[in-house]
């Protein structure tokens, strides 16, 4: 599974998408979740939006990981739209023969999603204010 959409994300669906590889001995799965505070301020929700090139960029991130690590199955999905506290924003799952590669590849993919995939986060605070995370320095 590779994609970006508005539907709620399911850890079970992503897990099942990478688990049917008999020679894989380790599956690393990361879920990024909406947190209730940011730098001491109470957060009430997040609005995620993305550039039309987002899925192309997501594919590039996954391809880089495939070139670097012996990945046997991989999924990466990101949600956009309005999310509430506790909602899952992103899931990455990697299956490899051994856990070390699975952890390392999963880490590279989520780190590069944050750095290079054109997704934006509009954070709403309990005091009624809001900000675009990371956009204004």
């Amino acid at each position, binding site marked *: 599974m590779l994609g970006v959409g508005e539907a709620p994300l399911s850890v079970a669906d992503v897990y099942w998408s990478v688990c049917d590889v008999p020679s894989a001995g380790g599956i690393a799965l990361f879920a990024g979740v909406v947190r209730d505070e940011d730098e001491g301020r109470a957060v009430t929700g997040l609005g995620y939006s993305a550039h039309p090139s987002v899925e192309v960029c997501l594919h590039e991130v996954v391809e880089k990981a495939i070139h670097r690590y012996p990945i046997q199955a991989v999924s990466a999905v990101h949600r956009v739209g309005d999310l509430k506290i506790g909602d899952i924003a992103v899931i990455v799952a990697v299956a490899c023969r051994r856990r070390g590669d699975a952890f390392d590849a999963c880490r590279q993919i989520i780190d590069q999603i944050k750095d*290079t995939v054109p997704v934006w986060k509009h954070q709403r605070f309990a005091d009624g204010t809001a900000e675009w995370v990371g*956009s204004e320095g």
Partner: protein
Amino acid sequence: MASVTIRYWAAAREAAGVAEESLDALTLSGALDMARRHRAGDPRFAAVLARSSFLVDGTQVGAGAAATVILPQGAVIEVLPAFAGG
């Protein structure tokens, strides 16, 4: 000079106050300078631009090339604020 369109995304759209604008410019940095001047040096707009990346007709332009890349007639510049996925 080329007539070009600047398309603003996310925080850039909010800071710019518009989703798109048209202006005449020779280079990417010339177009961005003009956009800043239109807003009388608004510090918030400038701060967002300083942390943005730019596409010209869909292709990323590195910060070092912004002053030298000549804009084609009808070019679309896209302003992509710093990413914050995950």
